[in-house]
């Protein structure tokens, strides 16, 4: 961070209009017609007003999606918002927690301080990342929705859910109206595309973009200790050798805690879910190389580089194994990369890095761009709070890197949750435990590459992003509406994912994939394709 961040700079920057919102298509109504796609297309997305209050040390790019990097937190960050956004009444919300569930509000000073700053008591229902989608489905079924609803991407029939239960936000957010909430205006347009349903804006994105791109993150300290330096596998065989070198069965040490299938698929250049060519859509499961990826991943597993409990472990367990050094690789995102340092209990020697993707035989693989958003949040129609209040609270949660609000939201209170080293906040033990109350999934600032006290991490992440992100490919179905996809994708994916497990365990041959794809096509795959192709044709 080179420039001081002052209130004046912030106010000046918030008035700058960097780019106008691009009208988009996106997911849409449960009526499932092409009319729905057209209605979405007509929606004017929020105008993008980039926050100019801070100057990054490592500038990102709007074109490629590489994120801004900061080596230090701006000194003297200024309060960017006046007054508390809340209305004094308790606001209920439901969110997921990627780490251990933190102490309840009675024993959590950070949470108490958040309540005070927000100006409303936040009643947070939490569940672990692994269970959140199920928890969400159950809460929807029970009809007990909170004021602010964190909707996971896997939720079924989101258009109908949003229409029935949530406020439409088009009037407040479309076009220049969003400027009333400057930090929501600072969210990337690409992420807003995922919030358009039923011909209107129905939600707020939790932006991630490039930060959500997932590649093998590895324990650089453990790899170095094996004398392997900074590994850069040139092909699959190289990667296999690396995994073998990081496995020590006798001491219960493994390269992986789950099958790295997606990584192998990216080596083989497979599409990021849906591929579009001349208006024709093809799903990853239909492409022959998917079977090659299965065979290759099976080879990895047969070589014994995955923990024998690898099919059982969820994400949370894998993160614990990674921290403990039981495994040295995990397929995870840039966000997680930073989080691993925060969760580290190994002392200062702990170091993490990320592998690039080589081609399966040679050359370079094709990375998959992470979804533009982590999840979306919507406001319950039956909430006692005004939409304006809930938007103000979301705006507060989206206060960008460099502001005092961001510093407080992410790091808590000085002296209690963090100490300052130079201008960089470093968590205290209490801060690590207390601050993880899941606010980052209610709304969040655009991601920045930064880790307090570790400028080398921001540099590494930036280097990785500049190599990986410009070549990353998107899911061609993003922003297109398909009713079948909305209603049946979860079930269809579950069936294929189950078969994947059976193949990788050796219970079924790779050839069983063909029949499963035939079933996938007849039970919804073809319908999805047709709907996506129609939506695409309308868009172009």
């Amino acid at each position: 961070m080179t420039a001081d961040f002052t209130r004046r700079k912030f106010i000046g920057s918030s008035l700058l209009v960097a780019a106008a919102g691009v009208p988009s298509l996106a997911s849409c109504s449960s009526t499932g017609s092409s009319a729905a796609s057209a209605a979405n297309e007509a929606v004017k997305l929020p105008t993008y007003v980039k926050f100019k209050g801070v100057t990054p040390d490592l500038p990102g790019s709007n074109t490629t999606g590489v994120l801004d990097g900061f080596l230090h937190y701006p000194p003297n960050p200024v309060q960017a918002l006046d007054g508390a956004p809340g209305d004094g009444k308790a606001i209920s919300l439901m969110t997921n927690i990627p780490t251990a569930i933190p102490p309840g509000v009675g024993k959590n000073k950070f949470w108490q301080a958040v309540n005070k700053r927000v100006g409303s008591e936040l009643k947070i229902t939490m569940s672990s990342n692994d269970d959140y989608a199920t928890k969400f489905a159950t809460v929807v079924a029970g009809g007990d929705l909170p004021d602010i609803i964190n909707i996971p991407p896997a939720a079924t029939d989101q258009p109908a859910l949003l229409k029935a239960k949530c406020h439409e936000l088009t009037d407040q957010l479309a076009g220049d109206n969003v400027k009333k909430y400057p930090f929501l205006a600072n969210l990337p347009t690409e992420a807003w595309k995922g919030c358009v349903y039923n011909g209107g804006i129905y939600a707020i994105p939790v932006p991630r973009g490039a930060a959500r791109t997932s590649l093998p993150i590895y324990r650089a300290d453990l790899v170095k200790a094996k004398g392997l330096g900074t590994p850069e596998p040139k092909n699959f065989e190289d990667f296999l050798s690396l995994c073998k070198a990081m496995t020590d069965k006798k001491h219960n040490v493994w390269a992986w805690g789950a099958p790295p299938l997606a990584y192998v698929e990216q080596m083989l250049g497979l599409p990021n879910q849906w591929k579009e060519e001349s208006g024709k859509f093809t799903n990853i499961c239909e492409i022959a190389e998917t079977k090659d990826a299965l065979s290759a991943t099976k080879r990895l597993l047969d070589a014994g580089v995955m923990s024998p409990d690898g099919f059982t472990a969820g994400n949370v367990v894998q993160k614990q194994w990674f921290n403990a050094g039981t495994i040295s690789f995990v397929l995870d995102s840039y966000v997680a990369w930073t989080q691993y340092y925060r969760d580290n209990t190994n002392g200062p020697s702990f170091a993490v890095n990320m592998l690039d993707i080589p081609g399966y035989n040679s050359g370079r693989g094709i990375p998959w761009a992470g979804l533009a958003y982590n999840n979306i949040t919507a406001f319950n129609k039956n909430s006692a709070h005004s939409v304006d209040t809930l938007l103000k609270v979301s705006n507060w949660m989206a206060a960008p890197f460099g502001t005092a609000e961001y510093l407080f939201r992410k790091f808590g209170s000085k002296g209690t949750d963090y100490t300052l080293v130079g201008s960089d906040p470093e968590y205290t033990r209490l801060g690590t435990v207390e601050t993880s109350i899941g606010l980052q999934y209610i709304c969040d600032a655009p991601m920045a590459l930064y880790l307090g006290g570790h400028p080398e991490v921001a540099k590494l992440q930036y280097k990785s992003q500049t190599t990986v992100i410009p070549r990353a490919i998107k899911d061609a179905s993003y922003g297109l509406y398909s009713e079948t996809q909305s209603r049946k994708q979860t079930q269809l994916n579950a069936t294929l994912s189950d078969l994947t497990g059976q193949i990788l365990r050796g219970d079924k041959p790779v050839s069983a994939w063909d029949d499963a794809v035939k079933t996938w096509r007849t039970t919804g795959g073809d319908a999805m394709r047709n709907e996506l192709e129609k939506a695409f044709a309308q868009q172009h």
Partner: protein
Amino acid sequence: MTATTVHDPPTQRQAERRGRGKLSIAQRFKRDRVLILCTIPGFALILTFRYLPLLGNVIAFKDYEPFLGIRASPWVALNNFKIIVNGDTAFLSALKNTVVLSVIQTIFVFPAPIILALMLNSLGTEWLKRLVQSILYLPHFLSWVIVVALFQQMLGGSGLLNNYLRSHDLATIHIVGNPHLFQAMLTSQVIWKDTGWATILFLAALSQIDPVLYEAAEVDGASRTRQTYHITLPGLRGIIILLFILRLGDSLSVGFEQIILQQQAVGRNVSEVLDTYVYNNGVVGGDWGASAAVGLVKGLVGVALVLGANKVAHLFGEQGVYRS
């Protein structure tokens, strides 16, 4: 004994019973008002949590979306039952797994507490018997999450057993997560967890057997085996048949929580049962209507099995669950 009963003066209650026809409903209500009052909380509880929710089964005939509500969701007649009639692959696989598990559990789990109760009953030392009983009851109070985690920690790929084997350069044993052993694994978990607890009813029935019978048998020179065969088992017959019929009614419920916790490790093709199918397709997958249809059919099959088994029990001269 019968003659004595005939010549005894009728008790007041017997007289009331005989005169039941003469008492009006109001009179009977007045007579039993305190008892009726006492049943109200229990009745309300059963009505609210057992019978009223049954109305929710109407979603089996609707394209139900929870956020639209039951009324606003459109009727689809018998569409949701198509997966049952047409034999949807996933449903058939769940049905097959359920039936296989049910048969295995009936053969191995059902007799286990009877055998254990007989063994406990044969223990002579009272304090030892109580100690063993208490230890055997304990696992029942552990939740399935704990039990599954215990098995995982002991027998899992990187559990205690395999870590030991691996660190001594011995071949590991693939138990947890092995689809071929999944049914055996489930069954042994149920036996470990609940057999002790399930002995309670059998031990109670055993204590009701008149010791005089054993003494008489012993005088007649009957061995312990003969005594078990001719006195103990006939003494347990009523409770065994009662529990067996109830078990049949529950036979299509083969342990939801226990299975869902271990499903990811072995895959759905061996672990999906009707209950997990309903959950995975309904709650998680959003196909509530079809899931409700499967649940409804499962319930009806359970009722039919209980009624059928009860009838069979009557044919054999047993009391069964109830007499009409």
